[in-house]
């Protein structure tokens, strides 16, 4: 395979759930790609389809009422419709995932060591002693103090940060090419958050794994991501390099997201900005742009559904052109919606 061919290509991914009240479109025609060693930040508010779309990459949506369509190609292999056996072989060894809450992510009745050894042996059968030695080295790698002793401790005996380190050690045990981190720091103290991000960053650099970092923390994105995908109501609304996104966001939703971060410098705003209204129901999405009802810059064109603009570097699903953006951003910043 070519070095620069993408590791993961997601094309028109749709995930919908049949419920009693109707079809819930959790993910709607999502497309993105990821290169080797790249960090993609996925941001959006709760219910925007961040986690669901990434869970479907691993085939982890077990709901019988779920329908997954589109294409997810990982290293040239189509993952949708893949056999359970082949998917299991990929999970944990080529694609690993860590979850939001380390308090509940580990089985409470087994030691940390047992669970890491299980991960290793599931994909690489080897003597227990060897796997244990490997688990010890992994714990040391993620900065766990006194790794020998931690192997025999149970999850409830560790702090949240330590548990998340153990979870990361487990996820990275088999050197996966892709790590999906679903809000890995949301449940942790702020000081521990930074440590955990450092661990992920360090591991990414030493292992060369690509990372999909799901978060709703723009600060985390700014620190970690090479590229950012902003999601709203199950769709990708903006896709850009991290610095481009922060310097020149195209989509009014992204403006609003960035505007809701309290500024560190200058006068303190009288009140933090919030986005008026609430996200649309996924059962009954507006016909046009899903963000239009909450968008201060909407105009006639928004009655239709905007597609992600073509191009590879910076894409947005918005009808505003460069001039329109300038005009609207100026108005918005007068109203204090965007600090830039």
């Amino acid at each position, binding site marked *: 395979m070519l070095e620069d061919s993408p590791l993961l290509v997601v094309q028109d991914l749709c995930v919908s759930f049949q419920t009693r009240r109707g079809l819930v479109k959790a993910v709607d025609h999502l497309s993105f790609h990821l290169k080797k060693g790249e960090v993609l930040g996925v941001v959006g508010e709760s219910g925007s389809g961040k986690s669901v779309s990434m869970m479907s990459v691993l085939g*982890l949506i077990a709901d019988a009422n779920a329908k997954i369509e589109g294409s997810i190609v990982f290293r040239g292999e189509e993952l949708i419709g893949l056999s359970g056996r082949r998917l299991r072989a990929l999970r944990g060894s080529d694609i690993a995932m860590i979850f939001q809450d380390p308090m509940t992510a*580990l089985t*409470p009745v087994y030691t940390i060591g047992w669970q890491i050894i299980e*991960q290793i042996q599931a994909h690489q059968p080897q003597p227990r002693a060897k796997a244990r030695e490997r688990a010890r080295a992994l714990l040391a790698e993620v900065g766990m103090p006194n790794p020998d002793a931690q192997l025999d401790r149970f999850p*409830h005996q560790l702090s949240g940060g330590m548990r998340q380190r153990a979870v990361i050690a487990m996820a990275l045990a088999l050197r996966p090419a892709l790590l999906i981190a679903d809000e890995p720091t949301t449940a942790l103290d702020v000081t521990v958050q930074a440590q955990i991000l450092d661990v992920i960053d360090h591991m990414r650099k030493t292992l060369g794994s690509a990372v999909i970092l799901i978060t709703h923390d723009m600060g985390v994105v700014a620190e970690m991501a090479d590229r950012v995908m902003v999601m709203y109501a199950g769709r990708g609304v903006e896709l850009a390099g991290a610095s481009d996104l922060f310097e020149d966001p195209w989509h009014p939703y992204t403006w609003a997201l960035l505007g809701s971060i309290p500024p560190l410098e200058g006068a303190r705003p009288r009140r933090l900005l919030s986005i008026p209204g609430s996200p649309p129901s996924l059962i009954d999405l507006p016909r046009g742009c899903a963000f239009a009802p909450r968008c201060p810059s909407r105009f006639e064109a928004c009655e239709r559904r905007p597609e992600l603009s073509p191009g590879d570097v910076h894409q947005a699903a918005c009808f505003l052109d460069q001039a329109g953006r300038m005009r609207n951003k100026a108005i918005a910043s007068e109203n204090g919606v965007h600090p830039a």
Partner: protein
Amino acid sequence: MILMLIRRLLQMLFVMFGISVLAFAIFFATPGADPSARIAGRNATPETLIQVRHDFGLDRPLPVQYALLMKRLFITGDLTSFVNRGQEVIPEIVASTPVTLSLVLGAALIWIAAGGLIGVLAAATRGSWLDRGLMIAGMIGVSMPVYWLGSVINLFAQSRLHDSALFSWVPPLGYIAFGDDPLGWFKTLVIPWCTLAVLYAGLYGRVLRGALIESLQEDYVRTARAKGLSESRILLRHALRCSLISVVTLFGLDFGALVGGGALLAEVVFSLPGIGKLTFDALQTLDLPVIMATVIYASFFVVASNAVVDIAYGFIDPRVRDA
């Protein structure tokens, strides 16, 4: 862990002391009734009454009466029945215990195995026809009273179909000690075991299925799936282990109650001279010393098996160990 063990055993002793005081109070300190008349049984002669009063120290204060009774129960072991003149109570209980233990242990093995299988299969195939079929079968098992099922089985195995190839091996009702004839022991007990187990297997299957399905919703199961483990390993190693607590709790209560005399119906239907049968007979003749001894014996088993369950928690769930 050791500290927990010691603490739990001390608690157990304290609870048993409480139960013995309560049992004593019910029989000896109920106002408005003369305990000597009740101990002596129906139509007792005045001489017997005097002897009872002297034997149990009924003319002395209550604490002394309690101490005397406990001494006769646990130290000298010479508590005697006045209904069946001069029959010692303790040896009777000692003779009945192996019968009840044989019955309940065998049945427990069967119902744990069958209930476990039902629960795991139903949880693994939840929503399917197999799941529904198993749950309906379990419900039917729970709904059939032991005395009815036992009588029906006896009707076929002992009488109607006894001469057919299917049931010709069935020995007559009664108990054969394991030491005398292991094969006979097995043959007399296998039908009672299954009869008793039918009720509990259905119950345990349903409880385990519920606990397993609840565990399968947990975050750690999602982690296990993300690790690339097989569904069977996730079910058996992760979800089952965490679901055991509810089943073990139930087992401790059921097992203790059954050994303590709750197997009465099965023992009566199958003519097994166990503790339940002993209590049943004593109740019919109002043989108070026997009733007292069996009540205390039963409470001992219930309390002890609950203590064993608590200790088992420590092995199943490490979080309990540190608590």
